């Protein structure tokens, strides 16, 4: 077993990275890879999505079967594309990654639940970083997760504008 930077004695960690296809979550993934990742670490790429809410919750006008099927198909494709792209990056960087998907209308609670379920040692999230110069807007998902997470959470802001 090789010794690298004195980390050979550390227990291998399980890290859950919230991914949503946005540049912020890509940035969080890249930050994790260059600053925290150690060989052998168990990385869970967690994505949550759902059909548009009007197709999921009962509304006055029931959606047609074909609408629902179309929405399901397009969701499935989008998720598959994201999975492929993220897993390919993991492969390129020899990271031990696992894809995890959950249907949910509420990404915040989904991330908290997933990290508890997986007993993640660390949760990694990107933030939106919009807003005034003085205050970063974390986004509703990050806000929820940092307020409710039972596991350590890394909040990764977007890179500074060049």
């Amino acid at each position: 077993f090789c010794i690298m930077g004195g980390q050979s004695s550390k227990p291998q960690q399980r890290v859950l990275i919230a991914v949503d296809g946005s540049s912020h979550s890509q940035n969080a993934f890249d930050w994790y890879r260059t600053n925290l990742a150690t060989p052998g670490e168990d990385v869970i790429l967690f994505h949550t999505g759902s059909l548009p809410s009007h197709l999921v919750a009962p509304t006055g006008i029931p959606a047609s079967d074909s609408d629902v099927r179309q929405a399901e198909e397009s969701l499935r494709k989008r998720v598959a594309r994201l999975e492929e792209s993220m897993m390919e990056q993991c492969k390129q960087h020899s990271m031990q990654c696992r894809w995890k998907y959950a249907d949910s209308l509420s990404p915040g609670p989904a991330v908290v639940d997933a990290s508890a379920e997986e007993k993640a040692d660390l949760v990694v999230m990107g933030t939106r970083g919009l807003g005034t110069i003085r205050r970063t807007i974390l986004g509703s998902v990050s806000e929820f997760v940092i307020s409710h997470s039972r596991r350590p959470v890394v909040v990764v802001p977007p890179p500074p504008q060049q």
Partner: protein
Amino acid sequence: MASPPAAIAGASPESKAQLQHSKASPTADEQAVQNRSILIAIDRSRHSERALRWYASKIHSNEDRVVFVNVTEPPDLALGFGMAGAAVAEIYTKAVEETVEAAKRLAVNVKTICRSFGIEKIRFLERISHSPGQAIIEAAEEEQADLIILGSRGVGVLRRTFLGSVSDYVLHHSRRSAVLVVPAEQHHHSEAGGQHYSVQGKPAVEDQDVGDQAAKQEG
């Protein structure tokens, strides 16, 4: 900020040799984190001690540059109306000296904890500021921190974690990554009721005064 895999170019001859003999794949080796700048926000509460221990046991690498920042707020003083200038200065000086002494005791305790994890090379930044959160962010910029380590105050009755106003400020204003170290899941009892929302640097009564404990042990 740590640079991408190109950082391998700066590796020492010893670590390069190790990498060549490594059984792990070449690409994973390139990811070995090098020369990170880590800023740990520390105060006298057990929450920041927890954050330190978390970093030391899970994250620390011998190549990390570890910097602690302790921020206390300027002392509150009751000054008599019409007091002579010299008396005012004396009272203020005394209050600042007490703050500095408390910070020194904290530094001793932090050093002891670090040593127990084999972390010897550490630096301390002592700051007095009305806005501890802002002071931490400024320190992070000075140190070009790759990661800021923050403690959280625990889990409350309503299953919400209490960040503490300083950690909350840093998380919302930082342009650099920050990790919030929450307590282990076993602690479901309420550590922080709604009214226990004190500002770090003025630990609430229930918080163990970690810095003074060390002084007692050495005393």
